[in-house]
């Protein structure tokens, strides 16, 4: 009975008003939905970005060399092969040319790697909304209190998000095949 009450409540609230984040298409930053973010104090904690060892800070090398904005075959970072709408995109659409320790939004705003979800959210608004609600991706910790959640980059390699080679960080997904744990024992067979 209790549950019926919940569902009834739910259905009137969706039928009535338009959800506050329902905005026309387009880059989501500066982001009207950020207002719906929980206040900083109960803001969920994010584990450190899944960098390869020794690569960060990027400025250890990049502060010395000026950025080369030309699309070209790189002599360094050869392991990075862009397969993410690469026809329309180059490294410096996401990485800031002048401060390599930061990412760069379409608006020109610099964003720390700890907030790379804002970068992804520009183009994947639907997933970003679900992620912020704790529904896409994964939260851990307390359902009622302190939570940690994974960055998009923990589960998707930003450079080839659909096919995650090796899956840095914890867990597998992308489309990388995963070895299943053993099936249950059939009844009567020990």
């Amino acid at each position, binding site marked *: 009975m209790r*549950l019926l009450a919940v569902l009834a409540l739910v259905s009137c609230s969706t039928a009535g008003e338009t959800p506050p984040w329902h905005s026309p298409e387009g880059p989501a930053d500066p982001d009207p939905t950020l207002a719906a973010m929980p206040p900083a104090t109960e803001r969920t904690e994010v584990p450190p970005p899944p960098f390869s060892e020794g690569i960060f800070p990027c400025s250890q090398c990049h502060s010395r060399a000026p950025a080369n904005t030309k699309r070209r075959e790189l002599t360094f970072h050869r392991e990075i092969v862009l397969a993410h709408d690469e026809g329309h995109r180059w490294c410096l659409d996401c990485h800031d040319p002048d401060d390599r320790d930061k990412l760069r939004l379409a608006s020109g705003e610099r964003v720390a790697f700890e907030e790379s979800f804002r970068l992804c959210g520009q183009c994947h608004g639907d997933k970003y909304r679900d992620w912020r609600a704790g529904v896409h991706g994964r939260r851990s910790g307390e359902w009622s209190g302190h939570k940690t959640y994974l960055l998009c980059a923990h589960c998707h390699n930003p450079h080839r998000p659909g096919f995650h080679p090796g899956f840095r960080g914890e867990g597998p997904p992308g489309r990388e095949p995963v070895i299943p*744990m053993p099936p249950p024992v059939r009844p009567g067979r020990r």
Partner: protein
Amino acid sequence: MCGDPTDRRSFLRQVAGAAAGGVAAGLLPSCVGERLRDLPRDEARRRLARLEAETRARFGREVTLSAQEAQPGVVFGYALDLSRCIGCRRCVYACVEENNQSREPQIHWIKVLAMDKRRGIDLVHADAYYNPPAVPEDGRFYVPVQCQQCDNAPCTKVCPVRATWQEPDGIVVVDYDWCIGCRYCMAACPYGARHFNWSEPGLRAAELNPALHYLGNRPRPMGVVEKCTFCIQRTRQGRYPACVEACPVGARKFGNLLDPGSEVRYVIEHKRVLILKEELNTMPKFFYFYGT
């Protein structure tokens, strides 16, 4: 003899035998005792302390046994994203470890069913024993099934001794000291979510999760029924269930159905949600959804 639940079970057996002789009637009321929940608080506390000491002695390890009650204003709900689940069974084994299920003979509270995409949700043709080198398999999707924590639970209604019931936070629990092992509840459950200890559960001391709840993961005796409790020992302390934390693709969502800001509420309000065997009117608090 009457204080000890195992004795109570054997006592009931004797009573059944002796009933013909007419001895039973006078003995019953004094010896059947009470469920923990029916006891006065101080007595309940004493019984818990005794059980805790027994468990400690039996496993030779420090344990804590809680009987923490439901929080007011909380009804737990669960949502599982069928468009994400890859059938890896990490949840199954995380559950076994957290909840002290018997390793041998094997008891799993979560069963992951592989289904054919062309057939859709079809429990009759589901395969629980799939074992390919890698998942997900082409053309298949996966439906993990565990206790659906029904609001209108058929299992609790058939229990002849009221050893299983729904708590105020919606969790359907079993008092293992009160269960007489008749298994009516297993027959009544349409989801196959209840499991019986046919023999002494095989659980080594090293495998024991020592953070115990009376109605949840404390070691069970032979001859009783057990089931998923939404990890009552974790969730009543505000934590996520073990299966939620274990899921590598983030398909499992948990929270308070009465909190409009909870993940489960977001799912119910924004996603296509389905309920297993909805036509039975069991009113599960476990929802399946498509997150894509």
